[in-house]
């Protein structure tokens, strides 16, 4: 870590701040933090980014004079170069994706050419898609402002679930620009396209903002919604052009091309100015080195934020959950009591606050009355609160793009700012904070989608048939349409009349298909402590793990005891309790390889013989019981058996096969080797989520015996769900007792002969993770090794191979040894 000290020195050496400026105060705070960092392992990175000058360009000559005047009146006399380039590309009819950091004026990139086109031809229509309602509201304000300056020459409306029924008619007729979200497009607009004739006949532009949020399941759905949208647009004789905006990810062009299924031009220059910025990684000090336990990152976040506030720097604190938001808010408000007769200077901001209160907070931040705000990701995306002096993040936001977006909240276009990321002890956070180059180098984050996931695609094909009969020769993704349609006809959904397939079902298909997950099969959670009250909703697979009978379900910091799980009605009845334990589902998972699509063998020597593959698998899992675990001590204080239905899923997977010769070459006992493999799998899953930019829940893990030959029969396996990524630490057994892992010394350990380590897509049909993982095999192995090797714990901790208590001694060593052999 001495390196970071050197960096710190270098960073400061180059600065010559004037006294009293924000930078001086930022520096004072950093000095305080550095003084506390006795061992030099807390501030793991201090990076300085110098200010960047704006690069200007004139408004293109084709822009309508009135529009230029409107912008000039708003104070925009000139464009940044990237805005001019983007507007020019749109004007020439190209589909574009604009990649720029926060606060670089990206909305102008699409508003300028679109509004211009509406002024030239008032029939023009445009549809803006935002991933969240709040973002649409914010854009609406901007467009209203411009519209006023243009004598309200165009109609601009949001159309979402909150739009009153009597306003909808006017919006359909008069909205030149309609702001909505993919969900509303899917359930509210496309199935009623006949009411939107005006819009569809004249639809020239579709704007997709925050493109990078459409990855995984959501992105795969969106791609299909866009297929449907284009179908409808074509029916009304239009062929809209797409303008996308994305935060920085590794593959914006690829993502956009995949989503739009069209050629897309990537524009990633940035002409916006930026003030100088310091970015700090803060790893809370270790309090117990052997167990790898660090000081609470929530408390540390509060300390850091308080230091900034003390130096009169306007500060925004990001937390990853609502509960943490409230805790941090409490700490900071206690430290900064409300001045008598004045407003509270520290405020919270999250979903669940009323719109008026939010607007008031946004105003307070802009005019500086509010000195500090604690927020969830609600403030991460383009809501206008002006720019603050510093940002402190409690925990890694989960992706590099997201981290930069949050960090971008600090930093006026001129002046100085600072962003601090305080790491939690999760493997992801620890990896990032100890590998600053991974973060600050070129972003390795790729966004993947799999729109041709059969389950997703068929659902949207149903919606498409509902919207318009399917004509012969139509294309919809990469499937054989006539074949699938014939099968849907057999199932009673479609009917072939003439040469078109028509929808023949009473149901309204879009209503049963949610875009944010694959299955619409959700359980609702009903609190029956008092008058019945619905407190939440979880998807089917999670329900089995978290909501089985007698489980302790934690929601909003409150514990609930599950009284009854009504499987048929998809309801869980819970009661508030206050107990000192939590429950942990025990489930077993079997993975069976159906077909290996790609295989790559490495056998430089017998001791390193291994194979990695990807392909289709069948995953069977069942929750068979649960354990009651005491808080803090993690003692097992009771077991229970459960009889829940088996869950079967056909998906795609990436797996590593360890050959017999490799295992035998390891100088460890059988149980150490076994335990090492579980630890390794734990770490592999952590790193995979990092590379795939996905959530821990998106990847399932299992270990199983390699079948004698691929696709011949079921392999008898035992497996574990990726542990700390999910709160439910589940183990699975087949012919082993569940306690085996916790008691590695037991003698009846049966060893795997040639184990497969599976990382599978935790969605039926797969969501496209296995292929990139297969190709990134070397990177995955390399970074997993880095993660484990860099961890300071002795025998494993939640940040690397899993908590030491769950593993045999020397598991960490064994995992490292396997990795070394995998590296060849």
């Amino acid at each position, binding site marked *: 870590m001495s390196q970071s000290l050197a960096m710190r020195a270098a960073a400061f050496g180059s600065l010559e701040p004037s006294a009293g400026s924000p930078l001086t105060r930022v520096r004072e705070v950093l000095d305080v933090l550095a003084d506390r960092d006795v061992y030099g392992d807390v501030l793991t990175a201090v990076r300085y980014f110098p200010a960047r000058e704006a690069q200007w360009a004139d408004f293109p000559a084709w822009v309508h004079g009135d529009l230029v005047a409107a912008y000039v009146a708003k104070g925009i006399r000139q464009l940044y170069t990237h805005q001019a380039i983007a507007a020019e590309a749109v004007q020439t009819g190209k589909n574009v994706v604009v990649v720029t950091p926060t606060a670089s004026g990206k909305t102008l990139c699409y508003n300028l050419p679109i509004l211009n086109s509406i002024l030239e031809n008032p029939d023009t229509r445009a549809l803006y898609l935002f991933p969240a309602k709040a973002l649409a509201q914010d854009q609406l304000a901007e467009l209203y402002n411009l519209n006023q300056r243009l004598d309200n020459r165009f109609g601009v409306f949001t159309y979402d679930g909150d739009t009153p029924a009597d306003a909808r008619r006017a919006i359909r007729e008069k909205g030149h620009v309609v702001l909505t979200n993919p969900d509303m497009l899917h359930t509210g607009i496309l199935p009623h396209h006949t009411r939107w004739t005006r819009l569809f006949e004249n639809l020239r532009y579709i704007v997709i903002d925050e493109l990078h949020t459409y990855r995984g399941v959501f992105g795969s759905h969106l791609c299909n919604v866009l297929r449907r949208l284009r179908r409808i647009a074509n029916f009304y004789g239009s062929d809209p052009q797409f303008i996308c905006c994305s935060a920085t990810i590794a593959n914006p062009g690829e993502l956009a091309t995949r989503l739009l299924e069209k050629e897309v031009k990537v524009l990633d220059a940035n002409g916006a100015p930026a003030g100088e910025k310091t970015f700090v990684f803060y790893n809370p000090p270790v309090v117990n080195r052997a167990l790898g336990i660090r000081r609470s990152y929530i408390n540390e976040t509060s300390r850091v934020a308080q230091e900034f506030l003390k130096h009169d720097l306007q500060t925004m604190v990001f937390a990853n959950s609502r509960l943490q938001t409230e805790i941090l808010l409490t700490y900071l408000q206690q430290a900064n009591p409300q001045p008598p007769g004045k407003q509270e200077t520290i405020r919270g901001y999250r979903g669940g606050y009323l719109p008026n209160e939010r607007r008031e907070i946004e105003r307070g931040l802009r005019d500086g009355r509010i000195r500090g705000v604690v927020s969830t990701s609600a403030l991460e995306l383009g809501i206008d609160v002006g720019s603050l002096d510093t940002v402190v993040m409690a925990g890694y936001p989960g992706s590099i793009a997201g981290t930069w977006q949050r960090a971008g909240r600090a930093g006026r276009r001129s002046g100085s700012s600072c962003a601090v990321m305080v790491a939690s002890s999760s493997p992801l956070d620890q990896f990032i904070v100890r590998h600053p180059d991974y973060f600050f180098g070129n972003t390795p984050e790729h966004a993947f989608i799999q729109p041709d996931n059969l389950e997703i695609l068929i659902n949207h094909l149903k919606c498409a048939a509902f919207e*318009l009969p399917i004509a012969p020769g139509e294309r919809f993704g990469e499937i054989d349409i006539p074949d699938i349609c014939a099968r849907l006809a057999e199932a009673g959904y479609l009917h072939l009349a*003439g040469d078109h397939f028509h929808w023949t*079902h*009473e*149901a309204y298909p879009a209503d049963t298909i949610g875009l944010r997950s694959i299955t619409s099969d959700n359980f609702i959670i009903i609190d029956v402590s008092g008058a019945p009250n619905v407190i939440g909703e979880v998807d089917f697979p999670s329900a089995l793990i978290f909501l089985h009978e007698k489980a302790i379900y934690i929601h909003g910091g409150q514990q609930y005891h599950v009284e009854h799980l009504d499987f048929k009605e998809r309801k869980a009845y819970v009661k508030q309790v206050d107990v000192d334990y939590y429950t942990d589902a025990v489930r077993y998972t079997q993975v069976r390889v159906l077909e290996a699509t790609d295989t790559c063998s490495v056998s430089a020597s017998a001791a390193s013989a291994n194979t990695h593959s990807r392909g289709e698998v069948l995953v069977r899992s069942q929750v068979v019981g649960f354990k009651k675990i005491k808080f803090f001590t993690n003692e097992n204080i009771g077991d229970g058996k459960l009889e829940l239905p088996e869950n079967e899923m056909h998906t795609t997977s990436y797996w590593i096969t360890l050959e017999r010769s490799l295992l035998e070459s390891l100088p460890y006992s059988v149980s150490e080797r076994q335990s090492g493999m579980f630890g390794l799998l734990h770490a592999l899953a952590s790193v995979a989520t990092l590379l795939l930019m996905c959530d821990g829940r998106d990847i399932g893990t299992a270990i199983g015996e390699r079948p004698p030959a691929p696709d011949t029969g079921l392999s008898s396996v035992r497996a574990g769900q990726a542990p700390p990524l999910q709160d439910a630490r589940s183990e699975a057994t087949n012919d082993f007792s569940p306690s085996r892992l916790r008691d590695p010394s037991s003698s009846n350990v049966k060893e795997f002969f040639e184990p497969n380590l599976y990382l599978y897509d935790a969605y039926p049909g797969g969501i496209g993770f296995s292929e990139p993982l297969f190709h990134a095999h070397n990177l995955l192995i390399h970074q997993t090794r880095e993660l484990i090797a860099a961890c300071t714990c002795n025998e494993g901790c939640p940040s690397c191979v899993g908590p030491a208590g769950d593993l045999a001694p020397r598991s960490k060593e064994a995992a490292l040894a396997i990795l070394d052999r995998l590296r060849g």
Partner: protein
Amino acid sequence: MSASADKFSRLAALRPVRLAPPRPVALRAPDQEDSLAHLLGAGVAKNQFGEHLAIRNWFSTPEFSEPSAVALELLSRTRDTEITRRTRVALGDPAKWLFLDTETTGLAGGTGTYPFLVGIAWWDAGGLQIEQFFMRDFSEEHSLLHELAARVAERPVLVTFNGKSFDWPLLDNRFTMTHSISTPRLAAHLDLLHPARALWKLRLGSVRLVELERRVLDAPRLGWHREDDIASALIPQHYFDYLRGGPRDPIVGIVRHNQMDLRGLAALFGKINTLLASQEADREGVDSLDLFGLSRFFERRGDSDRAHVACSQALDFGLPAEFRPRARRELAMLAKRRGDHAAAAAIWLELAADSQDGVLACEQLAIYYERRAKEPARAAEFARLGLAKLQRMRAHSRDPFAAARSTRLAEKLLIRINRLEDKLKARSANRAAPNLSVLKSRAK
């Protein structure tokens, strides 16, 4: 009101005496193997878009019911005066009327729901001529819509039961989706759902057409029954089964069901027409609840006079006990509205005595004594009584909405009490020192 009634009678006088004869459209006899067409007694209609089945029947019941000017005026009254004027003119000619009802592949609406059977009917030769268009498959939709558009163009006044929000928008969708047949323009659209709801919801609870037929229209007397009627909920599935080569018999049942819906619709118009046009003396034997419903309908359409008459009559006929306070309240409000405050107060006094439901009466009396009778002391008394009743009621209530409502009401009453007490104080102060204000004003 009377002026527009005149207008209607004038329009009626201008109307040709004979109804226009239906335009003959040749139907081809179905092929021998088309067993469904034979079962239905249908012919094959053909036009440039293709073919579909058409079924024509004339029924002597329901008999033609001459629309009364009063009924038309009331039924066409909406907030939008522009629409109303056009509607009135169009409605004046029953030869332009077209009853319409569809059977569809679902109730969800949207672009994936198809009306596969469209039934239309019009008055003819004193009875009802029905024509039904059936598509044997989705490929016959365009020819069906083309035919329908022609019929609607001939008779552009649509009469439906819930067709304003369901059948017609659905058909509008279908027309739009053809890209080639534009939606025919309607001169007027009369939907009987809302009037029927106002009139009979109180007595029947549900105003489904079947229910109305049985209990309002006395269907057996009209000459038809629904004993072997098909369940509406099963209609989409029957059609889907038929499309996939399933049984044809249910289709016959659906066609009959649709016929009866159309006859029911026409008869329903007759019933509403008679009821709206009836004078007080004609209403012997009408159910008291229906009269109360009638008064509510009049009241909603802004005809307080007729509402008052019907409401008093309902009470005279012996309205069931649970509806009496409501009717009396209505009567009091109607009296207040036409300026007969004393009559209203008399009713409120009776109602206030009723401990069950006297809060509103007390409030109204407080208003009456404060504003009209100028007796603040009595007004305050009633406001306090109202508040006391309210608090007693609140102690028993668990419904959160009711609680919120009563909180608002309590606030209003408190404000009134305070104001009245101030008034009373000021008055007694004036009495005690009558010259004070005079002195003050002089001092200035």
